């Protein structure tokens, strides 16, 4: 296991390192001069040059990159170019809300996807399977910006039982907070739930055909015990992989979901920063999103290898 980890972790770090260079280089390709934007529309060339020096934009690209990386690693994100605000504070404020949203979505995705997947994998009745199949196909394909607007239309406008948007911290007021959380979390969870359901169903069907389950039936195990103690654990490893990838993608999905429900998270911050040309914030958040994806993928691989020893000996 440790040997596998030693092989797997460096390649993830390499990809992360390459991705950080890509983010840095790409944002420096952006048109528009951050120093001129930061100095304001009426600034003289001398003032712009002074601003450029102050922001460290006249250093060599290599030293700018290293300074940026050092800041990222030590948690000192610096100040926004134009507004001058502390990026660390902006990101911390948004991140808590986004974590709240994605956690809610992950819980819902596991619950809905798990139930639908077990239903599809176990049920031999055609109508049940057909309905669940159609539902997962829809949930998988319908974009969040469609399901989200539909949720608002049905649950906030036609039947006004939930707020159409906004946010209240779960920690401060749980009963109100949950009302704000339900729709965005459900919206973000649907594609992941559908994917989990499909993988679980396929995996369950394969496991149910195995001989050891026939043995279990023969020696008179109860159906529930057979399914949850014998079949499910053997069906989980491939599902786990897909769960990791789905969570990794949620940060991207959160950008849209936060926009629908006016949820004050990092997705909104990222979108606004692009529109406001706050390149340093964009750079930080892009690296963060990419890093989350890569790290989650790596953890998923390690957990997968831990559960399923066959993975370790491949290659």
């Amino acid at each position: 296991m440790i040997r596998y980890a030693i092989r797997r972790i460096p390649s993830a770090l390499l990809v992360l390192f390459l991705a950080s260079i890509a983010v840095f280089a790409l944002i420096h390709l952006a048109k528009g001069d951050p120093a001129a934007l930061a100095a304001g529309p009426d600034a003289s060339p001398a003032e712009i040059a002074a601003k450029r020096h102050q922001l460290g934009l006249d250093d060599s690209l290599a030293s700018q990159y290293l300074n940026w990386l050092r800041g990222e690693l030590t948690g000192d994100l610096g100040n926004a170019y134009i507004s001058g605000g502390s990026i660390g504070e902006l990101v911390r404020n948004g991140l808590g809300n986004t974590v709240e949203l994605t956690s809610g979505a992950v819980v819902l995705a596991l619950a809905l996807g798990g139930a639908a997947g077990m239903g599809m994998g176990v049920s031999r009745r055609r109508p049940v399977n057909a309905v669940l199949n159609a539902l997962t196909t829809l949930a998988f394909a319908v974009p969040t910006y469609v399901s989200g607007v539909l949720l608002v239309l049905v649950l906030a406008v036609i039947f006004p039982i939930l707020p159409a948007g906004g946010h209240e911290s779960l920690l401060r007021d749980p009963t109100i907070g949950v009302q704000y959380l339900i729709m965005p979390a459900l919206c973000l969870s649907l594609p992941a739930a559908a994917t989990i359901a499909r993988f679980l169903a396929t995996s369950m069907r394969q496991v149910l055909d195995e001989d050891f389950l026939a043995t279990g039936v023969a020696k008179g195990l109860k159906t529930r015990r057979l399914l949850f103690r014998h079949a499910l654990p053997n069906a989980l490893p491939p599902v786990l992989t897909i769960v990791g990838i789905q969570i990794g993608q949620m940060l991207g999905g959160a950008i849209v979901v936060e926009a629908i429900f006016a949820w004050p998270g990092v997705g909104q911050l990222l979108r606004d920063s692009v529109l406001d040309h706050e390149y340093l914030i964009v750079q930080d958040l892009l690296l963060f999103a990419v890093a989350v994806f890569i790290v989650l993928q790596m953890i998923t691989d390690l957990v997968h290898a831990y559960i399923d020893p066959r993975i370790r000996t491949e290659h």
Partner: protein
Amino acid sequence: MATLNVAAPMPVTPRQHRIRWLFGSPIATAGIAVVVTLFAAGLLAPQLAPFPPNGQTNAALQGASTTHLLGTDEFGRDVLSRILYGIRQDAIVAVVSVPAGALLGVSLGLLTGLAGWLDTILQRIFDVMLAFTALIAGVTVASIVGPGLPAVLVTVAVVNVPLFGRITRTSVLTLRNRDYVVAARVVGVRPIRLLVRHVLPNGVDPLIVQLALSLSLAVFIEGAMSFISLGVLLPQPSLGNMLQKSINYLDRNPWYAIGPMVVVTLLVVGFQLIADGLTHRLLRR
């Protein structure tokens, strides 16, 4: 009587074979019908649309009526007409970006077969590109080239490169030790010709399935980027930016939202159905 001779079946070319597979699947046929109808409606928007897409009137946010089948938006513009013109943005992305990304991806995927070191480098490049999930890639591109349709076009192309690259690489790996490829190599076929003329044609089935999935993804990305103001810019209509605005007026004219929602869903699901049908037929899964 014994001369009731059944004509020998016409030999079927691989292409005819494939077309039959495509239409032999009812779900794929349904998907094709939906997608072709909608894109045709978008293409014929100047003829079909009852009103100009940007014609403002005083009749803002009217509900559905016989003059405005889906009502009007906040500037009194006809929603149906704007939807028809909005479909065009998706058609452009589908026709321009998906083939561009696919072509680049397939080329890079073939290159992995030339040398081990090239394979290693390209694998890492694909890994880095895949770490930028679709919308994160969209934000990155929009911050470089600025919000607008060009950002959507670039994003969709870029996102597709590693998808097609990986699939092509898998085909190269599995096919290059087949007897016929080895035989071709033995008689002196050059590496590039070997890959393009001998390996690629036999690895084309999974690429066709991916093409359908990528078209679905393209519609999704256009809508998402336009929804968060990084894609097609107003007043130019697109399904995504219409949905973004409609959310403020759901109580006044719900058709403003329902129209684009139905069209986006039909397009995305339509391409998915084509992909599902093709998967059954071509990949026999």
